[in-house]
């Protein structure tokens, strides 16, 4: 199952052009949802106004080389490895979900656009990556959903309590779960069920990509920008109005350790 391209098998019933149109429509939905989100929340406007204010308060002018190095460091540390989440479980679950989703989406696009006809042989690495990406997303996503969500850990709400903030993570894990089940039932030739899970997979994709305006989907576009701006503000001295670091020596080393927020 995991080395079989599910879209190639599907192309016997659904023309590959239909699958490609579906992918393009999903991409358009994401772009439209993000644009509506930007217009409604005015967050990008706030972001640039804030950056302008920070520039005025800067005590040091950064050269292009310095800026580039800060951006690269931010990409390496805060964007690619989400260091702001510390060294705990949240970071591992986030990384699993993030890379799993990226791998799943990229391989989906490649397989649908290049290998979705029965007569073209798919390199086995692609379906393998597609399934691995889906499994990683499910693992990271369900781990987060059941155990690590702040609503559950810090606020003591039960895992089954649904709020709007759950729309993104739930639709994401449900999409990848349906994808895996569909791939399994299709490769096992369980007729009827493969159609059912294909439809569910398609619908959950519509909820995931069509719900960008209402969900936290667009955070993956905003967060990197905010991290870069934060590090630039630290380097140019404006520091978002934060006090400068104290010049006292590090006295306590690892003596002070935070407990996880579970004292409800």
């Amino acid at each position, binding site marked *: 199952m995991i080395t079989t391209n599910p879209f190639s098998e599907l192309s016997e019933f659904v023309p590959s052009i239909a699958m490609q149109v579906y992918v393009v429509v999903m991409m358009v939905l994401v772009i439209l949802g993000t644009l509506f989100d930007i217009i409604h929340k005015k967050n990008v406007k706030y972001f640039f106004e804030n950056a302008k204010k920070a520039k005025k308060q800067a005590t040091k002018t950064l050269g292009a080389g310095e800026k580039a190095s800060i951006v690269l460091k931010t990409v390496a540390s805060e964007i690619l490895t989400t260091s702001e989440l510390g060294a705990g479980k949240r970071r591992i679950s986030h990384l699993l979900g993030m890379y799993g989703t990226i791998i799943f989406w990229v391989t989906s696009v490649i397989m649908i656009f290049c290998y979705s006809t029965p007569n073209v042989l798919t390199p086995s690495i692609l379906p393998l990556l597609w399934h691995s990406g889906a499994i990683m997303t499910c693992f990271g996503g369900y781990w987060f959903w059941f155990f690590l969500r*702040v609503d559950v850990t*810090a606020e003591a709400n039960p895992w089954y309590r649904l709020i709007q*903030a759950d729309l993104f993570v739930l639709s994401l894990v449900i999409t990848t779960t349906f994808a895996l089940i569909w791939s399994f039932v299709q490769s096992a030739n369980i007729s009827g069920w493969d159609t059912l899970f294909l439809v569910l997979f398609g619908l959950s994709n519509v909820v995931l990509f069509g719900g960008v305006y209402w969900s*936290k989907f667009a955070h993956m576009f905003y967060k990197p920008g905010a991290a870069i701006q934060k590090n630039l503000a630290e380097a140019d001295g404006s520091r978002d109005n*934060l006090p400068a670091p104290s010049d006292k020596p590090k006295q*306590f080393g690892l003596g002070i350790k*935070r407990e996880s927020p579970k004292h409800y």
Partner: protein
Amino acid sequence: MPTFVYMTRCDGCGHCVDICPSDIMHIDKITRRAVNIEPNMCWECYACVKACPNEAIDVRGYADFAPMGHSVRVLREEEKGTISWKIKFRNGTEKNFESPITTKPWGKYIPKLAEVEEPTEEAINSQLLYDEPKGLNIDTGLPKMKKERFKKGIYY
């Protein structure tokens, strides 16, 4: 001066929710980021400001001391044992303060109320709160002010 959260800095870790003695720091239902749900009930202990690992919580100053355009930010450096405050007024005046913070391990003095004896009826009806006067280091009870020293009109 109640607190508020910068959404772009908050990562929803829940430390402020955990530490708020007023139980007014909660997680927003749409963004899953921290939010002060009741700023007028904030008793301004700034535990959340100090606890935030991302410096995402700021203080909204009173209008008489820091009108619009001000900022009150705090940087807590646990390893150095310092807490620094930067207060910026609208006219650009800056005040910087740096103080030592407690060096007790985080979470060491969380009261284990389940292990404490149940209060008596008399203790419940008393004006003293939990662990008073012992917790205030006053053995003789709370200080009382004589009525003659009250400002005119404020006693009943």
